[in-house]
């Protein structure tokens, strides 16, 4: 098939410039890792150039999970796009729901009642626990500590049951909507969350018993996977990676959203800047998340679970049967959606993996004009060449695991 080459194709097909031959240079072997490799946790391909067992150059190749979510969002109404934000990162779906809802609410300038805000915080922290549990289980499994995986998935199952109780879905919850929540918190949720959160701190003790002073774990993780803080800031790395290098920066504290300023919690920091310190940071974050959830449970305010914005939030079923206005609003929202005033906002939240920032542009219609998702995994994966340089190939598995990326989040 002879298709004319347009200029862009010529640019992209242009071969990289070959480096001049140097007879004294060591011979490098190129090894292709992935796209289907169990320790890449998704579909990531890394081209490794090896000198013996040492990685001299690593080049990640992403895009295998690109599904065009940003383009798809432009075709949906504002409310429909919530379901697409779930699918960006399957482990931090509620953080993605939250940042999208906060951004659109900023454009709409609607006030969210305290009960909805606190429920959002509680759900976002549960999803942080979910994400960190999956990370810990699979990361330990990569390094060879198999039993941790079973312990972590035992607790994760409890969290997924709570999600199902709230939203009817275990993973793609779409529970946080523009203007509030998808549903009123179910009857008896306090019992379910309370039971889980009272037991959880002792479960974290169990993981620490298994790993903290385990000599194999320590030798596989301590002093492995160093990347300097300057490099990380320059490359846009965020989240536990950066807190494992001693920088105390957490968006929940520095730019509080959804009433995080009312909660009492610490930002754990470690300075060793290796795989072990990232592990310690994440485990302490789990304890802090449990503290936040406990505070949300005990101090949950009374009141409405959605904003008083009839043009944005779907009316109650009962009202629709008796009130003309409620029926009209329902019809309008379902058939054409609501309009969002023209403007642009950037909203960021602290997700389990780092900074999620949504840049949303509205042109005043009932569909988003442009949504850019600044996902933490994209920037974190970008740092892999620096992180993996001059490490042993066996250590690269530990180093990759400590970054905790989700490839759906990278490729969108």
């Amino acid at each position: 098939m002879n298709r004319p080459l347009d200029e862009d194709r010529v640019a992209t097909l242009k071969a990289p410039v070959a480096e001049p031959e140097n007879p004294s240079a060591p011979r490098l072997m190129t090894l292709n890792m992935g796209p289907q490799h169990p320790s890449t946790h998704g579909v990531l391909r890394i081209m490794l150039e090896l000198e013996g067992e040492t990685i001299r150059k690593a080049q990640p190749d992403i895009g295998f999970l690109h599904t065009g979510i940003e383009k798809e969002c432009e075709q949906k109404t504002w409310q429909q796009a919530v379901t697409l934000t779930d699918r960006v990162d399957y482990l931090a779906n509620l953080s993605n729901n939250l940042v999208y809802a906060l951004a659109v609410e900023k454009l709409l300038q609607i006030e969210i009642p305290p009960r909805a805000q606190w429920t959002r915080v509680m759900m976002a922290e549960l999803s942080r626990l979910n994400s960190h549990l999956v990370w810990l289980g699979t990361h330990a499994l990569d390094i060879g500590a198999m039993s941790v995986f079973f312990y972590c998935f035992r607790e994760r199952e409890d969290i997924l049951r709570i999600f199902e109780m709230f939203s009817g879905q275990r993973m793609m919850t779409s529970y946080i909507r523009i203007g509030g929540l998808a549903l009123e918190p179910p009857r008896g949720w306090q019992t379910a969350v309370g039971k889980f959160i009272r037991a959880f701190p002792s479960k974290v003790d169990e993981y620490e018993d298994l790993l903290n002073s385990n000599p194999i774990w320590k030798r596989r993780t301590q002093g492995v996977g160093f990347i300097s803080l300057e490099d990380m800031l320059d490359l846009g790395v965020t989240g536990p990676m950066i807190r494992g290098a001693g920088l105390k920066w957490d968006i929940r504290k520095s730019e509080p959203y959804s009433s995080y300023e009312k909660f009492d919690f610490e930002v754990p920091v470690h300075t060793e800047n290796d795989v072990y310190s990232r592990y310690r940071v994440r485990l302490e974050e789990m304890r802090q998340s449990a503290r936040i959830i406990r505070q949300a449970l005990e101090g949950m305010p009374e009141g409405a679970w959605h904003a008083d914005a009839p043009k944005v939030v779907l009316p109650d079923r009962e009202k629709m049967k008796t009130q003309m206005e409620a029926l009209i609003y329902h019809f309008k929202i379902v058939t054409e959606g609501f309009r969002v005033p023209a403007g642009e906002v950037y909203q960021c939240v602290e997700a389990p993996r780092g900074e999620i920032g949504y840049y949303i542009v509205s042109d005043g219609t009932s569909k988003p004009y442009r949504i850019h998702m600044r996902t933490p995994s994209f920037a974190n994966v970008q740092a892999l060449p620096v992180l993996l340089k001059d490490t042993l190939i066996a250590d690269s598995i530990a180093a990759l695991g400590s970054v905790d990326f989700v490839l759906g989040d990278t490729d969108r």
Partner: protein
Amino acid sequence: MSHHAILEEQQAFGEKTLIVEPKHIVDLCRHLKAEEKFVRLSAVTAVDWHPATPRFEVIYHLHSIERNQRLRLKARLDDGQPAIDSVCEVWRGADWYEREVFDMFGIRFRNHPNLQRILMPIDWEGHPLRKDYPVHGYKYSYPSE
């Protein structure tokens, strides 16, 4: 904040936006990083305002941890051969973001170390996030099958 590249300053929803002269973008970014402590580049992206002119906006989200501030830079580019200087030499993290903008919008970044497609296959034609790029339809036909 004053610099010869800043054309206009806007404030909305508590966020500050600077409309900047595209040809001085590197100069301005270097100044902001060194003098104004914007050590982090959060993201680079673009918006296509087809069929309006100028058609493209390249957006830079800057962040200063020390000052706890965010700043948005906006450079407007015309249709045709949209191109702007790469800020990779200021923040290495711009690399993938600029590749993504090139991939999705077809905006060239001059002096970029490796301006290739990043999310789409390397021999893809067209730029999916442009507004005149169709959402539906098949890319290839398979006459021999």
